[in-house]
């Protein structure tokens, strides 16, 4: 079977894959990074969003072989060097933007890509950007609020708590 070499969260990773092995499966089952979640099989839910060469990608839309040589960032690599939560992760905790936690890795990775692209998004821009990320627990209220807060915007006026 062909070999795939990638750099994940600044560490080299390698493994043999079938042609049909998806990047999401490769990360979970071969590299052992189970923070990237699989919530559907039609590339709709966004629980598997990672960054490939800096771009937010649903890892289930890409074969592992296509990622050969790429730099991949996953949820496991998002915390600060000292292990503390980064700004987006901390905003998610501060604003209760997760419940069961299953969609959370994809949400954080998408939020990170959004804020890189648009450092001060409006509420509508956040909601639009998250169209590829499903959450069944939060009704999105606190996710949108956390992302606005992570961008440094004032959120205390967001509907009554």
């Amino acid at each position, binding site marked *: 079977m062909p070999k795939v070499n990638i750099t994940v969260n600044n560490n080299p990773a390698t493994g043999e894959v079938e042609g049909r092995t998806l990047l999401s499966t490769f990360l979970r089952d071969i590299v052992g990074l189970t923070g990237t979640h699989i919530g559907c*099989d039609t590339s709709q839910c966004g629980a598997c969003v990672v960054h490939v060469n800096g771009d937010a990608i649903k890892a289930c839309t890409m074969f592992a072989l296509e990622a050969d040589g790429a730099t991949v960032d996953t949820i496991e690599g998002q915390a600060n060097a000292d292990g503390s939560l980064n700004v987006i992760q901390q905003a998610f905790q501060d604003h209760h933007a997760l419940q069961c936690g299953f969609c959370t890795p994809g949400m954080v990775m998408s939020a990170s890509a959004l804020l890189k692209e648009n450092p001060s998004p409006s509420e509508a821009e956040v909601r639009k950007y998250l169209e590829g990320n499903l959450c069944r627990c939060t*009704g999105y209220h606190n996710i949108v609020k956390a992302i606005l807060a992570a961008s440094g915007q004032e959120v205390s006026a967001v509907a009554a708590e």
Partner: protein
Amino acid sequence: MPKDFGIGVSQKRREDVRFLKGAGNYTDDINVVGQAFVHFLRSEVAHATINSIDTSAASNMPGVVRIFTGADFEGVGGLPCGWQVTDRNNEPMQEPPHPILAQGKVRHVGDPIAAVVADTYEQARDAVEAIKIDLDELPAVIDMADALTENAVKVHDELKSNLCYDWVLGETDNEKVQAAFDNAEHITTLELTNQRLVANPMEPRVAVGDYNQATEEHTLFTTSQNPHVIRLLMCAFVLGLPEHKVRVVAPDVGGGFGTKIFHYAEEAFCTFAAKACNRPVKWTSSRSESFVTDAQGRDHVTKIELALDSENNFTAIRTNTLANLGAYLSTFSSSVPTWLHGTLMAGNYKTPVIQVNVKAVFTTTVPVDAYRGAGRPEATFQLERVIDKVARELKLDPVALRRQNFITEFPYDTPVALTYDTGDYNGTMNKLEAAADFDGFAQRRSDTEANGKLRGLGVNCYIEACGIAPSNIVGMLGARAGLYDAATVRVNATGSISVMVGAHSHGQGHETVFPQVVAEMIGIDESQIEIVHGDSSKIPFGMGTYGSRSIAVCGSAMVRATEKVINKAKKIAAHLMEASDADIELKDGQFSVAGTDKSVAWGEVTLAAYVPHNFPLQDIEPGLEETAFYDPANFTFPAGAYACEVEIDPDTGQVSIERFCAADDFGNIVNPMIVDGQVHGGIGQGIGQALLESCSYDKDGQLLSGSYMDYAMPRADDVPFYAVDHSSQTPCTHNPLGVKGCGEAGAIGSPPAVVNAVIDALQSAGHDVDHIDMPVSPSRVWAAMQS
């Protein structure tokens, strides 16, 4: 200084840190050394007899360990139903077998026919494709009314018909009910559908079975809301295993919403196959598989009639409902259209005569069972829609009409078998009126209309029976289980505490909330307290998490166990300070002797309990660990009032939610932030039901909405920010914390508000429309506007 720990504080969730770092431990993250993988061959047709299954080619495929068919499960029990409903003639419901793998017939798309265990998941999938099956297709049974006709094709040949039960609650004398309608000044009738939904927790179901031949012990890792329930059902009814040799673990679970309560064939299969193959066996559901195997929700067709006297008092309600059970009886399916639905038909109102009629029907569709709210959303939707309709017919203020009919004196015995212990429905309505700014609506409507759109305001109330449930009552009603819960409070020598609870957290934040209660009671820092849940080998026998029961039932058990711990600790403290037990006070983690300056710290007492050198060994045992089981005296009754404002684009029929306000009475609240989050999530799902979601089958029983491409899940830009208020509080009168539960309210209370708002908007533009079935899609709205 503001309070910074204990009850009432919005503590940030400690479990978030692992989830945010991708370090959660979900079932699919668990891999057991040597494991094989199973993939199921599932029926692609709704109804057929199986003539033959040829596995010869598949058996020779690479990596195949073993192939199982129904023949391997002959003599093995089927999946049991946990609630026997008795019909209007005192006859038990019709209860067909529910095999692990199909026995001679398939009854819905997705019904499992065979299973391949192989070295890899891909090999199992490949081999499934090589199995040859010969089926004779039978007509699908889809429409409930058709299913009940005399010559209908039967889903289960051994049953008399497709009717599971014909059930009645409330006033059973038809003449008395009819007399109430005959004497009415006004009668309003509404026929409506509460459409079938798919729960869709973001984590698909997973099961990993493991068997240790040396110790003869089974372990099942599974995505469950209630590991002990799964163990009991699987051991006692399905596989006939000794409970003490079976460990069921539900680790981090990615949402449940009811659909992970039930005992599923795949759990029993993996447990069985792990022993049969002498290898751990893992099954991970794809989302496509979830759509045809996870129990689905709702699916009621109802006619409701409401009678009023000349002063607009509600005088009678009569409902006739067809409830779809799907092809088999899922674990609690029979209770949902009956005791979880009919009992709530009084709502928040003092209607003296109520009759609820329910016919539950087998069809060749995926089984239907509890989904967030379970029966109570169906009751609320009927009642609040018909009240809205009558208010419009009589040109009454819908809020004033509701207020006029509110129950205001408690306790209140409803005509449908419940006793509401407490409530203040005017209180929550007052909060709603303020939060929703009813006074400003006219201006907002005029602004919307200036932009060429329509605007509507919808209001409704809800009540739910939660804290499920008093075992003696539900036993009389047919439950085959007790519905208590349990907690063990284990104090360690150095004073830290592990609390083992029967409740299961799959998003509710128990790991944060439960320690707040114990910290409050003892007066020590929450960081000293941890919750252990989800592993039947570690926790006392508890019934798990559903029906908004965790804090009301399991939390009460935890309070009782903590009280026992404190009582014993006071005896130890009394001994250490040479005082009388009765004089010992506990405050802020210090035991003191009343009226003196003598005190010992919590940690000194706990150390003495485990190093009992100076200890009253003649009076009490060493150690400090207590267990309590708590069986509630009554249900709890969260209630509230919701308001929704929508805009409708008249050119397209597109509905957008502009404002959504919720005023809930949950009694006392432990962590307000988490309660807000629960309500937000429920509203999100309720808006999903109202505007987007529909699980649809065609006439041949093919699931038309079998993926996220076809089943419209609410997305971030489908919903607004919500305003949530829970400051109107009438504490529950019969549990120690005065709590009611908050998990389902949002999903129960929100759908009628949305639909009421849509009707308000359409009528404001002169459209003669008094109901649109959910989901209120652009095409349905547009069609209603053209009629």
